[in-house]
C-alpha cells in the first residue's frame, strides 16, 4: 500500500519537474524577483539608505534577505529548481531525440508518406533496381549519401543532413548546468579580496571580502605606482609596477610587471587587478647640504618625522612643510620646508628652503656655515589591488562556449531528411526538416525539379 503511494508521489514529483509550464514560471519568476535587487541597495547597504526607510521596512527587508537578495535562500532555491527542472526535462526527452538520430526511419511506407507535408511523385521509365542505382547516385550528388533498404520488391532510400543538430538544445541545457557548477566551485574554493600596497613595500596575505586573512603563499611588492591624466584632467592611466617574491627572492619573469586597469597580473591562480590608489602618507623629501667653505654637496633623503644625521655630526629634522609658499615668498611659488638643525654642541639653527628653481639659493642668504637646498619630493602612493582566486572560472567559460555553440546548433542548423521510394516505373520523394520549413520547401522543390528533368 505504502509502496504504491510512494511511487505515486515519486511519479507526481517527476511529472512536476518535467513540466515546461514550471520552466516558464521559473524563468519569469527569476526575471521578476531579480528586479528587487536592482532597486534595493545590496550589501554593503549605504547608511543613508537605511535612514530613509522605516524600521518596519528595514526589518522586513532584512528577514526576506532583500539586502543580499541574490544569495538569499529563496533565490538560490529558484536557481536549484530551475536546474532540476532542466535536467528532468532533458532526461525525459533526450532518449526520444536520440532515437531519431540513431535509429532513423529508413522506410517510407504509405502511412508515413501521408504524415509528411512535402512529397512528390514522378513517373519514370526503367526497372526498380536500375532506378534505385540512379536515385542513390542522385541523392549522393545532390544531398547526402543514402541508406538503401529493400522491402517486397520496392527500394527505399534514406538520406539525412545534420542529424546531430537535434542535440543543440541539450548542449544548451547542459551548458547551463556546467556554468552553475563553475560558479559553485568558485564560491567554495575561491575568494575575492582587496589589498593596499605602499610603494616599496610588500604583502604576503590579503583580506577577503568576508574579513578573513588569506595567506598568498608568496609575496607581492609594489615597486612603483603612477597615475597620468589627459589634458582635460580626466585620468588616463593607473599603473602599478609589481614584483612577485618567493622566499624573499624575485621570481624570474614576474619582476617589474606593469599592471594597469584592464591588464592584470596572474601568478599561481591568483590574479591582481588595478583598482584604486591613494597617498601612502610618507612622502620622501630630498635635500642637499654643503659647507660654505666649499666641497661637494651631500644629498639627504628624509621622511617628515626623521632625524637625519649630517656629515659633521649635526642632525636635521623637518619641522614644517607647505605645498605652496608663493604668498609668503613672492616669485617662489611651489613647496617649501622649514628645517631644524641641531649642531653637535646642542645649538639649534633654523633654515628655510624652497623648491622653486629661482629660489634655490634662499638658504645661502641666511649666512650659516651649512647651506641647504630643497631638491625635490617623492610623493609615495599606495596601489589598491583587487585580488581574486577563482578555480571555477574555466568551467564557467567552458559552459559559456558550449552555450553559444548549442544555441547556434539549435537555431541555425536544421536536421533535413529525404526519403525516396522506388518501384517499377515510379519514384516517390518525401522530405522533412526540423527547422525553417519554408527554407526546406525551396530545397525540396529544387530537388524535385532536378529529379523531374533527370528522369524524363
Amino acid at each position, binding site marked *: 500500500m505504502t509502496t504504491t503511494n510512494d511511487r505515486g508521489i515519486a511519479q507526481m514529483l517527476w511529472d512536476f519537474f518535467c513540466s*515546461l509550464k514550471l520552466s516558464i514560471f521559473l524563468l519569469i519568476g527569476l526575471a521578476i524577483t*531579480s528586479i528587487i535587487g536592482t532597486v534595493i541597495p545590496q550589501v554593503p547597504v549605504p547608511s543613508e539608505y537605511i535612514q530613509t526607510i522605516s524600521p518596519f521596512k528595514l526589518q522586513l527587508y532584512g528577514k526576506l534577505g532583500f539586502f543580499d537578495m*541574490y544569495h538569499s535562500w529563496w533565490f538560490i532555491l529558484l536557481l536549484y529548481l530551475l536546474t532540476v527542472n532542466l535536467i528532468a526535462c532533458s532526461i525525459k526527452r533526450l532518449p526520444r531525440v536520440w532515437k531519431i538520430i540513431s535509429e532513423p526511419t529508413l522506410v517510407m511506407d504509405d502511412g508515413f508518406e501521408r504524415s509528411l507535408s512535402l512529397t512528390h511523385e514522378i513517373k519514370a521509365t526503367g526497372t526498380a533496381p536500375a532506378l534505385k542505382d540512379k536515385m542513390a547516385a542522385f541523392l549522393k550528388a545532390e544531398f547526402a549519401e543514402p541508406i538503401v533498404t529493400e522491402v517486397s520488391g520496392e527500394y527505399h532510400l534514406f538520406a539525412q543532413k545534420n542529424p546531430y543538430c537535434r542535440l543543440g538544445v541539450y548542449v544548451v541545457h547542459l551548458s547551463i548546468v556546467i556554468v552553475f557548477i563553475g560558479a559553485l566551485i568558485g564560491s567554495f574554493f575561491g575568494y575575492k579580496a582587496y589589498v593596499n600596497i605602499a610603494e616599496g613595500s610588500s604583502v604576503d596575505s590579503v583580506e577577503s571580502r568576508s574579513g578573513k586573512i588569506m595567506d598568498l603563499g608568496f609575496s607581492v611588492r609594489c615597486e612603483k605606482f603612477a597615475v597620468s591624466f*589627459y589634458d582635460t584632467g580626466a585620468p588616463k592611466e*593607473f599603473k602599478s609596477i609589481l614584483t612577485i617574491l618567493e622566499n624573499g627572492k624575485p621570481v624570474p619573469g614576474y619582476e617589474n610587471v606593469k599592471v594597469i586597469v584592464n591588464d592584470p597580473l596572474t601568478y599561481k591562480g591568483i590574479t591582481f587587478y588595478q583598482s584604486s590608489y591613494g597617498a601612502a602618507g610618507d612622502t620622501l623629501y630630498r635635500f642637499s647640504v654643503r659647507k660654505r667653505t666649499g666641497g661637494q654637496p651631500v644629498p639627504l633623503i628624509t621622511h617628515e618625522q626623521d632625524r637625519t644625521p649630517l656629515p659633521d655630526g649635526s642632525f636635521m629634522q623637518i619641522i614644517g612643510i607647505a605645498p605652496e609658499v608663493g604668498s609668503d615668498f613672492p616669485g617662489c611659488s611651489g613647496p617649501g620646508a622649514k628645517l631644524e638643525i641641531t649642531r653637535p654642541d646642542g645649538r639649534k639653527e633654523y633654515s628655510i628652503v624652497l623648491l622653486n628653481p629661482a629660489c634655490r639659493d634662499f638658504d645661502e642668504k641666511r649666512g650659516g656655515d651649512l647651506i641647504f637646498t630643497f631638491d625635490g619630493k617623492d610623493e609615495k602612493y599606495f596601489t589598491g589591488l583587487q585580488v581574486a582566486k577563482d578555480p571555477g572560472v574555466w568551467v564557467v567559460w567552458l559552459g559559456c562556449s558550449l552555450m553559444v555553440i548549442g544555441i547556434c546548433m539549435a537555431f541555425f542548423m536544421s536536421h533535413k531528411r529525404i526519403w525516396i521510394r522506388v518501384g517499377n516505373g515510379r519514384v516517390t520523394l518525401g522530405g522533412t526538416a526540423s527547422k525553417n520549413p519554408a527554407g526546406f520547401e525551396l530545397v525540396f522543390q529544387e530537388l524535385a525539379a532536378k529529379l523531374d528533368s533527370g528522369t524524363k
Partner: protein
Amino acid sequence: MSSSMLFNVTTISYMVSTLLFLAFLATKNKNVGFSGTMVAIFGFLLQTAAIGLRWKESYDLGRGHAPLSNLFESVVFFSWTIVLIFLIIDFKYKYRAVGFFVVPFALLGMAWAQLGLDSGIEPLVPALQSNWLLYHVITCFLGYAAFAVACGLSIMYLIREKQEDSSASSPAGGVIAMFPSVKVLDDLNYKAIMIGFPLLTLGIVTGAAWANYAWGTYWSWDPKETWSLIVWFIYAAFLHARITRGWVGRRAAILSVVGFAATIFCYLGVNLFLSGLHSYGK
C-alpha cells in the same frame, strides 16, 4: 565635412523614410514603399560613413577610440543596428509595411542623440580601454536591435489581430491590409528573436569575460548585469513558451513587447534610474 553634418542628414533620411512608409500604407503604391527602403539604405550608408568619420576624428584629437564609449555614441550605434537588422529582414522577406513599425525606432534614437545628448568626443577612461568593449557592445546592440524589430512586428501583429477580430468575416481592409498576415508576423517575430537571443547571449558572455579580465569577477549582480539577465530570462521564456502549445500568436507578441520594454530599461533605465558600474549615461 564633419561627422555631425552626416549625422544630421542621416536623421533627415530616416524621417523621410518613415514618411514614405506611412505614405505607402496610405496609398498602397509599391514604388512609394520601394523608395522608403531606398531612402533608409541611403541613410544607413551615410550613418556608416559618419560613424567611421567620427572614429577617425577621435584619432585626430589624440583620443582615438571606437565610437562606442558614451551615451551619444551608443544611441547612434543602436539606431544603426536597428536599420541594419531591418534591412536584412526587408531584403529577405520584402514586407515593406514592416518599415513603418521599425524605422521610427531608429529615427527616435537619432533625434534624441542629436537634440538631447552631448556629442563631444571624450577621451576614454581607463576602465573602458579594452578591446572587449568593442566585442561586448557590438554583440549586445545587435541583439537589442533584433528585439526592437521583433517588437515592431509584434505591435503589427496585435493591431492586425484586433482588426481581424472586430471585422470577423470581412477581410481586413484599409491600411491594415498592407500588413503581412498574422501567421507571417508571428513567424517573423520568432525569427527576429532567434537572431537576437544568440547575440544577447554572446553579449552577456563577452561582458562577463571582460568583467573577469578587468575586475576579477565575471558576475557581480550589478544592476546592468542583472537587467541583461532579466531580458535573457524573458526571451528564454518566450522560446520555451512556443514549444508548449497555446503560446504562439497573441501571447507571444505580448511577451515580445514586454521583452523589448525590459531591453530598453536595461539599456537606458538602468543608467538613468539606478547606479552601477556602467554609468556612462550621466
